[in-house]
């Protein structure tokens, strides 16, 4: 840079002149730098989402009731899982909380299946995949409808007796065990309870693509 400046200056001036200019140049850059930082730091900080600053680690905060008719269907027990819808209050950004519709898959296990669940789902009982609530409650298991691979919604295919994700072909057995395809783990059970005769779930989103269960968000 110095070489170019020397060429461009038609009059480099006396040594005092040059030293004065160097000082002014550095002072100007310094002032510009301070102004720039005071603008840039708050501006960039303003982009940090709330959820990164104070991630919501509270568990079981929001219980949402499942639809009665759909839960009756699950209780009456077919060999197929039952898709159940529910709705919870969700605050999207600056909008006031409003109903957000979601769905889950429920299965009812026979007593023998309850016993074999642990064997079928070792991923739930390794330290990394462990969930902090019981997966089987009153012989019911409720699965999040989100595929653990990349977040698509999988479907039950009765002819194959498998859950199959349409996006990348991940396949899961009726107990949610990973059978085929790119998914890194089995399906994610959600907290489930019975309260005042109502079946309720909590909506939890786990991080996709991880063999471990990392909570991203609660409803």
């Amino acid at each position, binding site marked *: *840079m110095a070489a170019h400046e020397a*060429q461009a200056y038609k009059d480099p001036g006396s040594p005092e002149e040059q030293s004065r200019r160097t000082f*002014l140049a550095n002072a100007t850059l310094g*002032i510009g730098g301070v102004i720039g930082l*005071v603008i840039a730091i708050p501006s960039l900080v*303003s982009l940090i989402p709330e959820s990164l600053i104070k991630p919501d680690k509270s568990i079981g905060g929001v219980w949402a009731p499942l639809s009665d008719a759909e839960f009756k269907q699950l209780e009456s027990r077919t060999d197929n899982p039952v898709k159940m819808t529910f709705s919870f209050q969700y605050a999207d950004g600056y909008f006031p909380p409003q109903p957000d519709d979601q769905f889950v898959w429920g299965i009812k296990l026979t007593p023998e299946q309850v016993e074999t669940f642990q064997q079928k789902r070792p991923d739930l009982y390794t330290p990394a995949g462990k969930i902090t609530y019981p997966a089987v409650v009153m012989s019911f298991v409720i699965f999040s409808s989100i595929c653990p691979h990349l977040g698509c919604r999988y479907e039950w295919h009765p002819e194959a007796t498998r859950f199959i994700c349409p996006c990348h072909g991940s396949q899961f057995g009726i107990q949610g065990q990973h059978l085929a395809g790119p998914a890194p783990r089995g399906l994610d059970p959600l907290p489930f309870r019975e309260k005042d005769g109502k079946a309720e779930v909590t909506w939890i989103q786990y991080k996709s693509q991880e063999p471990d269960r990392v909570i991203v968000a609660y409803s």
Partner: protein
Amino acid sequence: MNGLLAWLEQRTGLVSQTTDFLTEDVPGGPSYWYVFGSATIFCMILQIVTGIFLTFYYAPSTASAYESTKYIYDNVPLGWFVIGLHYWGATAMIALLFMHMLQTLLWGAYKAPRELMWVVGILMLVFTLVLGLTGYLLPWDMNAYFASQVAINIASSVPLVGTAVQQLLSGGPGMGTLTINRFFGLHVWGMPALLILLAVGHLVIFRHNGAAGPPADVDNKKLPQGRFWPDQLFMDALASFLVFVVIVLLAIFQPPLLDAKADPTQKFIAYPAWYFLALYGMLRIAGLTGNFVAIANLFATVLIPGALVTLLILLPWLDRNPSRRLARRPWILGLTALSVVAAVGLSIYSQLAIQQEQAEGKTTVANVAPQPMAAGGPKGGAAGSNIAGSGGAAAAGNGAQVFATNCSSCHGASGAGVPGAFPPLAGNPYVVGDPALVIHTVAYGLTGPVKVNGKTYNGSMPDWKGKLSDADIAAAITFIRSSWGNKATPVSAADVAKVPK
């Protein structure tokens, strides 16, 4: 480092071009007198940067404008500070623009060969004021709503094209979500793009002609020679830094306030941004002119501001005096001083009037009405108890709304009417006369020629009974009888019901 720069220079020439540009001599030497323009440019950059970050959150619609603004205040980390910088940066930019313009006027720097630089500068001033006006609406709080309502209705009082202009600005007959979208588009894309283009033009002309410098009788000693970089830029940076420190302190200790969300049915005493106080003062004075209120409003809202901008643009050609010496330009300097005194006086007058009204908690329809009127406007609305039934003040405020929605397209937002077709309401003896006659005209319509103040009007008044509730008709009549200098008793819904067809 040298290797990389040499590589870049060989392929782009950027290094030598930048060096040549920066190390150019400043004719007459660098001076702190030149910092007003550069500090304005600094504020423009500050506005662009903070504005970009605000758009990461702000969403223009009636459902989200207020909510997203509040979210920036309450939830976004340091969001309140970014908004504060943007708010006070706007004030600083406009203040510096005025100072920059005043200096150019005093020094006669608009004279040949810098006429076009001056014209570009005036356009930049106008566009910056439009930026201030459009930005004022975006938070969609009470003041944003009512102050913008006033501004839009001023535009609607322009003869001939008023209604079209008003609807183009609002995106429909009234203010709503489309208005926010339009103001957002103007504020975020249209005006900044124009302003950047003009700023580049302004600077290119500046580099071509050099700085005009002070007139010979202010400073005729030989200024030391110096270069743009770093001599002049150091002075510019120092001035910008001082301005920035003030903006930061204001953003921290005087953060801009967010009112309640816009609600057209609530009473609210709207106040304009400080740089529009002088115009607002003219409007208030126009409202005091009694029977001449319509023509006075036209002068206050359109003719005087329009003439002022036209005069400023034409100034380099109107002022043919070749001298820039202060002593030889008494006319221009006198007029400039007079304008400054008038603007400051009007602003102080408005500010005091607004403060007084806010202190009194006065429910002037003047302030919620489409058109701000003099303090002497609607007495009925202020007293409230004069109006039969509860919520008299609210009814009068509602009257302004009913009028704006249903009546102003023919009778004008300022009640001026249309010659030959629709009679004026301001200064109309029938309007302030027998209430029963006014109610009958509004409720059951009127066709055929009518004579008002010696002039004939031959439009057609529709019958509003059935289309509007008795309460709305009463509110609108109360409004027209107490606005634009009219002073007459309010009417109630019961009065309206009593008048037979």
